[in-house]
């Protein structure tokens, strides 16, 4: 069996205006389908990807925000959001969509995947990852 590596997908850009957010999501889904250990990080303008209530009707693009809520089905349970990035944009955890996963080790209890971390903790998370993909 090949070794499972820790993948960290780092999202730094606003959801629209560039293709980065959507591309990142696609790669995340592919990585998860291959049963790698996948974690997501949202910082800088990337935190807007998780802010509730997108309206893409006048942008001419599909509203792909619901797909983030399916990530729990792909066994993605680690979604790190940087506290400082939220604060700098006047946001709190309450502004974010709900993301959940079912904990295999706790009788499949539904738990939140979102973990608010400090900038310092985020740096440590990056140091601890085998592979970092930046979007």
């Amino acid at each position: 069996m090949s070794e499972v590596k820790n993948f960290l997908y780092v999202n730094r850009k606003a959801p629209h205006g560039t293709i980065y957010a959507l591309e990142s999501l696609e790669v995340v889904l592919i990585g998860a389908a291959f049963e790698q250990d996948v974690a997501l990080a949202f910082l800088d303008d990337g935190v807007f990807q998780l802010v509730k209530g997108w309206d893409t009707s006048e942008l001419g693009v599909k509203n792909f925000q619901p797909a983030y809520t399916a990530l729990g089905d792909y066994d993605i349970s680690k979604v790190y959001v940087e506290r400082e990035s939220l604060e700098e944009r006047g946001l709190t955890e309450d502004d974010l969509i709900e993301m959940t996963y079912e904990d295999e080790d706790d009788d499949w209890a539904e738990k939140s995947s979102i973990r608010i971390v400090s900038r310092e903790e985020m740096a440590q998370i990056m140091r601890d990852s085998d592979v970092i993909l930046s979007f």
Partner: protein
Amino acid sequence: MSGYYEVDGKQVPHDEEGYITNLSDWSKELAEVIAKEEGIDMTDEHWEVVNFLREYYDEYQIAPAIRVLVKAMKKKFGPEKGNNKYLYELFPYGPAKQACKIAGLPKPTGCV
């Protein structure tokens, strides 16, 4: 090769792998046509999976990978339907791939 499915005298365009180009073109009649090309005789059990996929897509805007489909089916219909064997018997060339095609959804991301 890309081309068209013929449904009630109308042409519905599909891509080189047979997935329809415009998701809004889908109809039950079209599903039967696609299934026939795939060599599948649609039964109630097939429809159950196809309808389930359409509901999943409607909610999450993605076509689930096979592993996710199995898990979600298990949750909704129980282990006798939420397993690989059952789904592969219905859709021998890959449940996620074939059932998604019949359901008029895009090819599941990560499906090779």
